[in-house]
């Protein structure tokens, strides 16, 4: 039941993005085994797509489309390296462009490919370029909004029944970090609230702890933050995540690796804190803490 509820939420978000065509795309690689989700911190980058693990899998067009760019690994005549390896950009409907990267070299059926039908083979999953394991990184770019879109908003729902994990919640100020559960009380003051959350995929390798789809924080029953990993956009030389209250990618996590949620004054008295996390498959996990502020 929870999963259905989550899927409805995702569908509504996709519906808004695509003007009525929720789940407009098909999985480019089946079965989808998630090695990184939108917002996953991996070496040297924050993922703005979905990484799917597969060894020698057939990569197919997620929808009818038109090739707008393709490149074989290391073949840019400008001397620019190609960390995405061999990749193809397809123009899909409603201004959506999809990037299919890290394909196996020379696995494209034809080099002159222009128009493709949904389901047509684009190549084979591979490990060309900078990728931790064999697979495909699939990114969706909304040309109208000039931003990356979480592909899981426009792909069929994942079928994974493992809910995300909430490892800890911390309140920090200056150089003190109070991990709730270990700390029952703390002095009054302004604290940065951060949470250690990880989603669980079913891939044979991952780029890093998977980002959930959303993290909601409630303090004393009031919603304080609702982070939804929906879009990312480049602004002034920085990549900003979230459509509401954008946050630079570099500020998404603390140096300890927790997702930064908010900075807030905690007055004296007992405070209840709840965290609700949902993954891309609609699985949910909640945790709550009670802390005495002195």
């Amino acid at each position: 039941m929870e999963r259905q509820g989550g899927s409805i939420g995702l569908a509504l978000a996709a519906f808004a993005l695509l003007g009525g065509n929720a789940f407009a795309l098909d999985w480019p690689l089946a079965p989808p085994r998630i090695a990184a989700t939108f917002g996953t911190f991996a070496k040297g980058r924050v993922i703005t797509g979905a990484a799917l693990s597969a060894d020698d899998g057939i990569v197919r067009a997620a929808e009818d489309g038109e090739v707008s760019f393709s490149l074989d690994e290391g073949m840019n005549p400008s001397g620019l390296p190609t960390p995405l390896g061999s990749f193809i950009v397809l123009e899909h409907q409603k201004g959506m462009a999809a990037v299919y990267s890290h394909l196996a070299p020379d696995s494209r059926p034809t080099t002159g490919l222009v128009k493709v039908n949904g389901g047509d083979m684009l190549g084979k999953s591979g490990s060309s370029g900078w990728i931790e394991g064999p697979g495909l990184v699939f990114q969706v770019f909304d040309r109208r909004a000039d931003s990356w879109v979480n592909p899981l908003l426009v792909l069929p729902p994942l079928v994974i029944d493992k809910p995300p994990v909430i490892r800890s919640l911390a309140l920090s100020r200056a150089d003190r970090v109070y991990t709730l559960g270990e700390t029952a009380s703390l002095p009054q003051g302004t604290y940065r609230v951060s949470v250690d959350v990880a989603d669980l995929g079913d891939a044979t390798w991952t780029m890093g702890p998977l980002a959930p789809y959303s993290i909601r924080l409630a303090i004393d029953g009031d919603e304080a933050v609702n982070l939804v990993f929906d879009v990312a956009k480049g602004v002034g030389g920085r990549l900003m995540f979230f459509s509401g209250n954008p946050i630079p990618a570099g500020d998404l996590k603390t140096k300890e690796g927790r997702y930064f949620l908010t900075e807030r004054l905690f007055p004296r008295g007992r405070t209840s804190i709840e965290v609700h996390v949902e993954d891309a498959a609609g699985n949910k996990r909640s945790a709550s803490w009670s802390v005495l502020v002195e």
Partner: protein
Amino acid sequence: MEETGKRRLSVAGIVVAGIAYFLVSAFPLQKELVLAPGWMRSLAQAPAGPIAQLATAKKGGAGPAQSAPIPFRLGNRYGYFTAEGSILFAGTASYGVALAPDAFATYDRLSEGFTVFSPDGTATSRVSFVGYPFFAAGRRFAISPDQATVAELSKSGAIAWTYQFGSIVTAFDASPSIAVFGLMDGRIVGLDPSGSVLLDFAPGGSRIAGVYGVAASPDGLLVAAITGLDRQRLVVMEKRSSAYRVAYHRYLSSDYRRPVYIAFTPDGNRLAYESPSGVGVYDRSSRGETAISVPATSRLGLTTMNGKLMVLLSGNGDEKRLVCAARPDRRVVDLVLKAQLAFVETRGDSIYLGIDDDIVRMDLRER
């Protein structure tokens, strides 16, 4: 061995044919131009790494003073040679190499850092950066695994600045004053040496936005790009006062959906770009265009010889073509080369041609 012998014979034949061509068929310019043979060296006999060369030099065995090293790359082989004909070394990169006249750095597929060496093999800096390095215009850059964040590196290996783009970088060129990046979303962004934005422009005018090639003139005053699909455009921007403005544009007949070679000649007077019929040439002073008709497509090298000749190497597969033209409509050399790998470089009045396992020098003479 037999194959190598045939290739060397082929290279020698090319040199002789080139000389004969000049002697028999060259267009007489104001003075007659001839290409005189210089030397030919085999990479197979070169040291495999710069350390060997350095050790030789330290023992005093380096011989007479040599001119500045000239970098080369033939497939995954790379190294340096001198105008006098010494191959300083010919290394093999396991995955990639960033190469410049004053430095090189090899890197692995999952590079989390790399060491920058001078051509003699001295390690000059260690860079901690997840991604791949690339060098241009005396500057050093690196790009992240998602191909969307670039950094400029100082000579000491420190990261001077980083810039996160909102889409994938598809094209690049640099001059000492501007680094130009073309993006999948159709934007052209130029950054100054401190990482500040000098230019941020989306040409538009096409059904699908995209940037397939960018070029910066050596003085940084011109930026050119091949952009868009249906229709594809050539856009040339010129810096006037502090802003870049479109100085020239033209819709092209091309429909490239892959990176396209576009580059200014080293003197900055001409811009050459790949086109279906050959190479389009934009003249900076006249703001007009001409074309050099060559049947092969991908351009592999473009340079000039002391402003006298435009030297072009193009080709696909195992057939390459070397064209030297006094003007776009007057070619004085047109040679077909049988080679899988090739490069062309010029220094002064000399052409250095790489053909598979050999490097050849030819000198331009007036008489």
